[in-house]
C-alpha cells in the first residue's frame, strides 16, 4: 500500500526513521550480545579489539541442567498455548455470536482477571493446587493461566470486526456454528492468533515467581529458574553471566519470532475467497 500513498523521498525517510527507532529498541539486546561474548572485564567498556569468547556460555550451561529445563519449558508453553487458543476462542465466539441476557456482565467479569496479577493471589492459589494434588507438576504451573482474559478480550475484539457478510455467506452455504468458527472466524483472525501466540509464549517462557514457588524438582521447573541463579546481585551484577544466560534462554524465542513474523500478511483476502 505504501507505493500508492507515498513518494520515494518519503519512503526513504520513513525507512531511516524506522531503522533509527529499531536500533534504539534493540540496544539492550545488542549490549547483551556484546557482553555475553566477551570476557567480564569488557562488560562496561566497548573496545573493538576485545577478544571473543564462549566461556560465559560454558559456565552458564554447566551451572544448571539447562537441556532438561528447555524441555520442561517447551512442554509448559505448548500446553498453555494450545489450551488458551481453544478455551479463549470458545469464550470469545460465545460473546460475539451467542449473546444472551447477562452475557455483557459476564464479559465485564472476565475483564476483572486482566486487572489482577496472579502473584497477588499466590498464597490462595498455592493452597488450591495443594488441595487438588497438582503441586510440582507442569499442569499445576499452567492451570491458573489456561483461561486468559487477555486472550478472550483480544479474540472478541477481532471477531467483532470481521464483516457480517462473510458469516452470512457461510451460513447460506449451510455451514453450522462450528464450521463458521473454523472456516470464517479463525482464518480471518490468523494474524491475531500469531500475535497472541508470540506474546503468550514469550510471557510464559519468562514467567518466574509462580513456577518457582509451586515446583521443587528438576523434572518440572522451567528455564527461568536456571536463569535466575545468575540474576542475583548480592555480589554486584555479573553482566557477562546474566546476559549469556539470558541469550541462552531467549534464543528459541528470537528464532520463533523470526519464523512467525512472516505470517503477518494479509489474511483477509484468502479467507474471503474460500
Amino acid at each position, binding site marked *: *500500500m505504501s507505493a*500508492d*500513498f507515498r513518494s520515494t523521498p518519503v519512503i526513504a525517510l*520513513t*525507512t531511516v526513521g*524506522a531503522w533509527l*527507532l*529499531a536500533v534504539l*529498541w*534493540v*540496544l*539492550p*539486546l545488542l*549490549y*547483551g550480545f556484546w557482553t555475553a561474548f566477551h570476557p567480564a572485564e569488557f562488560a562496561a567498556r566497548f573496545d573493538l579489539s576485545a577478544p571473543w569468547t564462549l566461556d560465559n556460555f560454558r559456565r552458564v550451561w554447566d551451572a544448571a541442567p539447562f537441556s532438561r529445563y528447555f524441555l520442561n519449558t517447551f512442554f509448559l508453553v505448548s500446553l498453555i498455548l494450545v489450551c488458551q487458543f481453544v*478455551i479463549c476462542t470458545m469464550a470469545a465466539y460465545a*460473546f460475539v455470536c*451467542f449473546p*444472551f*441476557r447477562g452475557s455483557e456482565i*459476564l464479559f465485564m467479569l*472476565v475483564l*476483572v*482477571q*486482566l*486487572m*489482577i496479577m496472579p502473584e*497477588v*493471589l499466590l*498464597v490462595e492459589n498455592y493452597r*488450591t493446587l495443594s488441595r487438588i494434588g497438582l503441586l510440582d507438576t507442569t499442569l499445576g504451573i499452567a*492451570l491458573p493461566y489456561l*483461561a486468559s*482474559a487477555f486472550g478472550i*478480550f*483480544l479474540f472478541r*475484539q*477481532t471477531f*467483532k*470486526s470481521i*464483516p457480517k457478510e462473510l458469516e452470512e455467506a457461510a451460513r447460506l452455504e449451510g455451514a453450522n*456454528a462450528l464450521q463458521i468458527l473454523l472456516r470464517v472466524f479463525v482464518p480471518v483472525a490468523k494474524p491475531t492468533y500469531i*500475535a497472541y501466540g*508470540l506474546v503468550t509464549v*514469550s510471557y510464559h*517462557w*519468562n514467567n*518466574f515467581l509462580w513456577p518457582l514457588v509451586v515446583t521443587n524438582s528438576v523434572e518440572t521447573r522451567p528455564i527461568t529458574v536456571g536463569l*535466575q541463579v545468575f*540474576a542475583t546481585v548480592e555480589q554486584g*551484577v555479573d*553482566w557477562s553471566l*546474566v546476559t549469556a544466560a539470558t541469550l541462552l534462554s531467549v534464543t528459541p524465542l*528470537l528464532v520463533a*519470532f523470526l519464523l512467525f*513474523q*512472516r505470517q*503477518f500478511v494479509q489474511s*483477509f*483476502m484468502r479467507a474471503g475467497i474460500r
Partner: protein
Amino acid sequence: MKASRNALYGGLLLLPAAVLLWTFTYQPILGTIVDSLFSTARGKRPAVFVGLDQYQRMIDDPVFWKAMGNNLVYALTTIPLSMALALMMALLVNSHLRGQAAVRMAYFTPTILPMVAVANIWLFFYAPDYGLVDRFLQIFGWGGQNLLGMPDTALGALIVITIWKEAGFFMIFYLAALQQISPTLLEAAGLEGASYWQTLRRVILPLLMPTTLFISINAVIGAFRLVDHVVVMTKGAPDNATTLLLFYIYQTGFGYWDTGYAAALTVVLLLILALIALFQFGYVDKKVHYR
C-alpha cells in the same frame, strides 16, 4: 427460541473458561476481600474481624498516597506515549520496508527478554559516568548524572523502560489488526485520490478502533501492573520516589507478610482499575464501529 439457543450455546462455550476463572481468580479474589476485613494473623495470634480498619489505615498511610501519586504520573506518561509509539511502529513495519523482519524483531525484543535480565541491563545503562545513557548525556555536557539514585529522576528513568517495553508489546497487536483490514477499502480510498494522511485518519484509524480499545484498556492496567523493574532496580528507592501501588502490595504481602493490609490494598487497586475499565469500555465500546 433464538435467545434460549444462544444461552445454551453460549453457556457451553463459556463453561471451561468459567470453571478455571472461578477456581483461580474469582474465588481467591473473594477470599482477598474477606481477608481485607480481618487483622493479619501472626503465628499464634489468630486474625480477628476488624471491619474497615485496614481501609482506615490506608487513609493515614503516607506511603500509600505517595504510591498513588507516583502511579498517576507513571500512568499519565506511559499510556499515551507507549500507545502512540506502538501505532507508529506498527504502521512503519506494515509498509514495505527494507529489512522488515529485522525491524519487527527489534521492536518486539522488549517482549521477548525476561524482565530480570532487562532490569540488570538497564541498571548498567543508567550507571553514572560509564553507563550508556550518561555517556550520551556527556556529549551535551550533562554527564555525571545518578539517574536512578536521585528522587527527581528515578521515576522518569523507570518510565522510559516501561515505554520501551509496552510500545513494542502493543505494536504487535496493531500490526495484526492492520493485516486484517480489507485491502479493497484501502484501494477504494486510493482511487478517490485520498492522501496517505487522509486514508490514515478516515479509514485506517476507525478500523483500528476495536484494537485501540483493547490496547488502551491493557495500557491502563499495564500502568498499574508493570512493576518488575521496580523490584529489581530500585525497590521503591530513593525514599519511595519510585514506589508504585502494586510494588507496595508486594512489599506489604511478601516483605512484611501483612496479608490483611495487602488484601485491602489489592481491593483498592482492583476497584480503581475496574472503574477505569468500566468507564473506558462502557463509553467507547458503544462508539466503536465493529462491522
